């Protein structure tokens, strides 16, 4: 199976380790991974801040780059939700504005074949034990768009439970937003910081060494707060845990 990795602009620029981990993991599971070099950004930040018309060319660009692939896999719940939930809506809005079906038709092909990484592993590859080894105590934060947008449900936890050496501890208030919310963190920084601090305190109370999530944007916010509050906990993307093996353990 040949899939395209949609890494997202944030991961590409700031978290290349997540990308390398995703490649390593998928390759280990027998997937032929390609990284289309022309990929950029799904347009989520534009769309969610109210710049839908600026997001449209990005969505079209996404479709141009990824349209030919059998499946598109992304290690980001929120960018996955952007494609799956909001691209169809962008098409509908264009239609409602009297601009015809062109946008909807352009975007339609990529919508059903875009998968968030854990979803792809469990639903498409049908694996929960990916042969990983990660001897640490981990707590899992289900990010909002993964949880409510894509409905990832128990998939990430099932994958984590199957990891050798990993002890999974429940995060109190897991379903509550960490307070990142893209430009929300800038526009409403006081509320955002208060939400982040509560999330970190809940994480700390578990005694876990690592807080894991399937979205680096939320992890950037949570990790930044952890560092500032000097908790000693580390934020780690789930791809890096699942890619870790006894031969090549993640640090």
């Amino acid at each position, binding site marked *: 199976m040949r899939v395209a990795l949609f890494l997202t*602009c944030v*991961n*590409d*620029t*700031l*978290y*290349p*380790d997540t*990308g*390398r981990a995703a*490649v390593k993991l998928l*390759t280990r599971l027998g997937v032929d991974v390609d*990284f289309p*070099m022309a*990929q*950029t950004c799904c*347009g989520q*930040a*534009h*769309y*969610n*801040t*109210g*710049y*839908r*018309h*600026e*997001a449209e*060319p*990005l969505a079209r660009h996404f479709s141009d780059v990824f349209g030919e692939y059998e499946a598109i896999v992304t290690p980001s719940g929120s960018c996955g939700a952007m494609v799956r939930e909001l691209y169809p809506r962008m098409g509908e809005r264009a239609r*409602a504005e009297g601009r015809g079906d062109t946008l909807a038709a352009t975007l339609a092909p990529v919508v059903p074949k875009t998968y968030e990484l854990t979803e792809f592993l469990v639903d498409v590859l049908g694996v929960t034990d990916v042969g990983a080894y990660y001897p640490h105590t981990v707590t899992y934060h289900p990010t*909002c768009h993964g949880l*409510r947008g894509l409905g990832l449900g128990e998939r990430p936890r099932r994958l984590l439970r199957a990891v050798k050496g990993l002890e999974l501890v429940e995060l109190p208030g897991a*379903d*509550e*937003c960490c*307070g*990142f*919310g*893209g*430009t*929300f*963190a*800038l*526009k*409403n*920084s*006081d*509320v*955002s*910081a*208060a*939400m*982040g*601090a509560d999330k970190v305190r809940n994480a700390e109370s578990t005694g876990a060494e690592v807080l894991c999530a399937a979205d680096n944007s939320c992890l950037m916010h949570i*990790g*930044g*707060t952890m*560092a*500032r509050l000097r908790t000693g906990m580390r934020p780690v993307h789930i791809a890096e845990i699942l890619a870790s093996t006894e031969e090549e353990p993640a640090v």
Partner: protein
Amino acid sequence: MSGTYLGMPAFPEAAREAVGNATLRGNLRHATHTIRAKRATAVSEVSDWAELREAGKRIKDHTLRHLDRYLVQLEEAVTAAGGVVHWAADAAEANEIVTQLVKMTGESEVVKVKSMATQEIGLNEALEAEGIHAYETDLAELIVQLGKDRPSHILVPAIHRNRGEIRDIFAREMSEWGRPAPEGLTDTPAELAEAARLHLREKFLRAKVGISGANFMVAETGTLVVVESEGNGRMCLTLPETLISVVGIEKIVPAWQDLEVFLQTLPRSSTAERMNPYTSTWTGTTDEDGPQNFHLVLLDNGRTDTLADEVGRQALRCIRCSACLNVCPVYERAGGHAYGSVYPGPIGAILSPQLRGTGSEIDASLPYASSLCGACYEVCPVAIDIPEVLVHLRERVVQGGEVTREGNKVVLRPAKGHAAERAAMRAARWAFTHPGVLRGGQRAASRTRRFHPRTLPGPGRAWSGTRELPPVPAEPFRDWWQRTRGGKDGDR
């Protein structure tokens, strides 16, 4: 809408104080988390919740689509039952109608059962200006009124107060308004409730005019419905000689049978009760039983304009259960006052900028008072996609566009203060549609990584004030990929 809240600062500023107020945050956290857990249990008991939610959504959508027809039907039914219907286009008109109605009775006091519509239009202040005292009789409203405070929650307007604070308000203020609080009042719930009961009873027995809102209006029978927990509403609705109900036009349902859906979803969503203790229904007047004069004031105040907006109109489905407030992490930290309206929380963030427009600072900031986490949509018993409407309104704020105001199509200009953001978004869009530009930027960032500050200037300062920034990696992923082709022919 009400003059009470005009001149509010933008949401982030209004929220800052609340975020820093430990007592307030404690009160809110405790109250919302308790009710949140209870609601989840009450909802999980109903096996067909998803269908009820869908049915509620459909009934409301159907009604809104044919609102004109159902309102006329309602007017006919109310009139036939001996009531009088008044139409109010805006707050001023509604206040004028009610003031005149009260004056005609010759009374200078009215009792009120909690009604958001009358708060929305600032009725109490309008009556006061004409020398008419309005007494709130809902327990929480009473606390707010005695405390010279503003409501901060749809259902529990005094949610921001704890028991100690309430005791102090009662002891200090009750005597000014009527029967004083008993000597040596403590902060036990039973004593506080008893003090309120005695204070209110005196007013119920004296009042000749009652003013109410309604949760629902049934078009086919002309019946109004109030759903409540305390029984004070029922006293307000039955004891006075004259009853004036002020109700938003969107509160209508076509038929009696439609109540079946909402009388299940509303109590479970709002108070986590299987059924609320008091459901009062009234239809016109009945000889020698209850009020002998009944007036219904149908309030528009921005609702038909809202109805004209394809995406935003779903806000009018709201049944004011307040479930969205109780799950909202932003409401929990910012408190209800920061929303600058009687409608706080997620629903307030989409309703106020539609009813009032996005002209003021506070209204232009409300669509951004959310992290778009989606918890509000998930709990809403009429499936209002609040995040969708928020994003839609953000678009209106930054881009302007066509809206309906007082029945006329007008083109809004973008709100002020977004020029830099717009330029940044454009630049980012340009870079993102030219992958080579993106790559150049990444490389430049990597090459200069040692010089990147860990705190940011300008709008980014807010971020780095409370959080550490991630370091810029030595090599962006795409360079690694090109160098190694995913590890296939590279150095791994």
